């Protein structure tokens, strides 16, 4: 008699979701940090420009 495979589809969905979700979170964190740093750099460049003019 052939046995059916175990019903583990829910665990597969959970596992793949965690893997893809973690990778997307990391990519998102890179994007947010890039944006924040670019804003910081812009502000600092403006301050430096104002200092050199004043």
């Amino acid at each position, binding site marked *: 008699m052939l046995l059916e495979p175990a019903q583990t*589809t829910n665990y597969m969905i959970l596992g793949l979701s965690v893997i893809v979700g973690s990778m997307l979170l990391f990519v998102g964190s890179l994007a947010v940090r890039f944006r924040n740093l670019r804003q910081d*750099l812009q502000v600092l460049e403006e301050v430096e420009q104002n200092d050199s003019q004043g």
Partner: protein
Amino acid sequence: MEGTPRALKWLSAVTGVLFLIALGMVLFYAPEEAVMGNVQRVFYFHVAAGWVGGLAFLVTALAGIAFLARRDPKWDRVAQASVEVGIVFTFINIVSGSIWARPIWNTWWTWDPRLVTATVMELIYLAYVMLRQGIEDPERRARFGSVYGIVGFISVPITFLSIRLLRTIHPVVIGSNDPSAQGAFDMTPAMLQTFMFSLLTFTFVYATLLWHRLRLQNLMERVEQMKMKVFAS
């Protein structure tokens, strides 16, 4: 800050396509494993994530050696960027393994040599990040980080060999299983192809993320230098 290099844009696009193909192969090409059922499909990305973790920590160690030899800060930036990618993928490896283990071992966690060594490896590199944050002087920080990255790499072969040298219930993909291994299986050609393609894809994912993270590191240092310049004036 200049825009994203054309080569990085291409690499990101190719990596994205490869990842979608790999996901398609995992879900639709590889057959359902006869005993474990669909949860076995997690294995392809679980192992690939572990591979990326080990590769990232190897690059950290090599970059540490390069920094100590040449004192060029760019190697320290590579090491730092690679550690972060390695930590993320080792986390993915551990958590996805735990999810696989729940229906196969009937537990989320057990004090098996592989699980313990992988978790210790993750903690070693989390400590690397904390160590760096605790050192003010950039030169000293880079030197300590390099030495730590080289010494910490010992945890990678220990993790890899733990299931080959110690008594374990963790299955072995390459090599022979311990008789007490639970959840071991023989790969069909389609499974092997999916596995190899997943390894290739995750290697591309690593290269892409490392490059992006390295650019972020360069930008962080530029902002820090700018801050010092503005506050000094």
